[in-house]
């Protein structure tokens, strides 16, 4: 029982980040029909900025929590600038062109890989502990930092879900992702909505990166792992579907945790891959996919 609770809690912690990550991927795909491999780099630059600024601010005798919050603001700002540049100079010209946009994103991946390595160096950098201490839930210990991460992820996901179902912008985003031409006939300004979708997805990647930075070791290559898992999550859930991304993220995290506990990390990765094959055999468009 104790083990089960511990495993569930670990899955939720990992799943929280996967969900934020795959929500961005699924949002971009839904609105613009593009597959953005450079999404992992938006995530990575945010984590890198946090890992850079927090020790710097802590050096000026700022307490850990304000230093971290300032770091998060800086990270989100930098990521949004990068996302803006990507959209304005690149993806804007490749909307609804899956092959073209994918090739562009591969180019961006290679370019940013090189640039990050030059700017930040290859070394991993630790972030000092922000919230010390551990909390016990149903007899299973969890560090306060990881608990805060989960809570933040749940709040962000709930906010996004609310925005997608209740606000005008959210409704427009969903309309565009179901049928962009019908949406345009109803007076939805497609170009502006696509831009908004891309920036929201960038912000989600930035928040995920900033949240994961204190509980992991940050290196310029941090995005690649999450990118693979995030894409598997959206394939399982169905590209373009918001509930699908949440479901897929939890699925991948659960298999990774349980498989990693009873066997090893390699078997867990292979198991995730087999899961994808099974899902595609039964439902070629993912569990909740439609279009």
């Amino acid at each position: 029982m104790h083990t089960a609770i511990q495993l569930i809690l670990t899955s939720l912690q990992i799943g929280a980040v996967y969900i934020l990550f795959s929500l961005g991927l699924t949002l971009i795909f839904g609105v613009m029909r593009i597959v953005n491999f450079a999404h992992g780099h938006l995530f990575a630059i945010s984590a890198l900025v946090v890992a850079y600024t927090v020790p710097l601010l802590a050096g000026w005798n700022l307490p850990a929590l304000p230093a971290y919050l300032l770091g998060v603001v800086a990270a989100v700002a930098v990521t949004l600038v990068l996302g803006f540049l990507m959209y304005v100079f690149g993806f804007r010209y490749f909307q609804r062109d899956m092959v073209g946009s994918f090739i562009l994103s591969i180019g961006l991946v290679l370019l940013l890989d090189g640039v990050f390595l030059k700017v930040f160096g290859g070394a991993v950098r630790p972030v000092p502990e922000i919230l010390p201490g551990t909390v016990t839930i149903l007899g299973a210990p969890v560090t306060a930092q990881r608990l805060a991460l989960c809570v933040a992820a749940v709040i962000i996901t709930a906010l996004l879900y609310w925005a997608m179902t209740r606000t005008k912008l959210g409704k427009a985003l969903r309309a565009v992702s179901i049928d962009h031409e019908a949406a345009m006939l109803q007076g939805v300004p497609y170009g502006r909505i696509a831009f908004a979708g891309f920036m929201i997805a960038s912000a989600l990647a930035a928040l995920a990166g900033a949240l994961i930075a204190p509980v992991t070791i940050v290196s310029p290559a941090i995005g690649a792992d999450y990118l693979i898992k995030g894409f598997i999550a959206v394939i399982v859930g169905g590209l373009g579907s918001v509930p699908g991304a949440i479901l897929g993220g939890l699925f991948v995290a659960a298999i990774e945790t349980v498989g990693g506990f009873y066997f090893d990390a390699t078997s867990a990765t292979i198991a995730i891959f087999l899961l994808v094959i099974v899902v595609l055999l039964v439902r070629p468009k993912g569990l909740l996919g439609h279009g």
Partner: protein
Amino acid sequence: MDNLRLPYWALCTALALAVTFVVRDPYLASIVNLISIAALVAVSLRFVMLIGELNFATAAFMGLGAYAAGAATTILHWPFALALVFGGVVAAAISIVFGYITLRTRGPYFLLIGFAFTEAVRILYSKSMALGGTSGMVGIFPPVGFDAWMPSLIMAVAAVLIFALYVLERSDFGKILTAIRDNENVARTVGLNILLCKVACFAIASFAAGIAGGLHAFANNVISPGDFSFLVAAFALAYVKVGGEDNIVGPLVGTILLVTLGSFALGLGGQEHIFYGAAIILAVLLLPDGITGLARRGYQRLAARKGH
């Protein structure tokens, strides 16, 4: 079957082989090997693009071919030619199973599942002790007498396979493939078994990728899981895109240009990734049809002016 432009092919292959006979510097020879193998991978990638799918599993099948050829040589002590063909056959056999499952999906799903497959296969090699684990497999040597002629041999094998893929593209089978790309449902109404045609196309391309992997193993004598990451497919895509995907000449032009420039940039101490990344971004933004597309447009404009 229409005109195959045989004289051009014969001339270009002869020229390419002549280059390999002249090159005696080991560094230049390694670049020539790199070009031959990369060109074969790029043409294999483009062959699946005929049905409108981006095949990121190319890297996985290249790796499977390399490891199969390597295992046949170092563990089973099979002769060189047999080991090479074995690599291609293993890649094709696995691709039939993989393709039968995954080719029911299309577009982004197929692309992403290929990407995941590449990473899963790479983890398998690095965990398999028999295949050398993370450090890879060593001692995959071609027969002793062949050493000096490896660049010519690799070029010849690559040229034969590229030509075979070209013949297939121009045949009726190739027309079925482009029909599937243009509209799968119309092709189905004529009574074609779409899934079977797609799997056949995928298996043929994977055979070529497997042979390319075997050639890579024999050219370098050492293979490791890191050689077959998804970047292999990303680079191949860069060659196809920069050269132009409309014509089989495109990937060849792209490969020769980018590999040569890339080796040069590496020699200058430049960063390979930044170079390739910038090349891909500029190519998709500025040259939507690649270099061959640009050349053809220029030629047509020139011809039109002469006509007046």
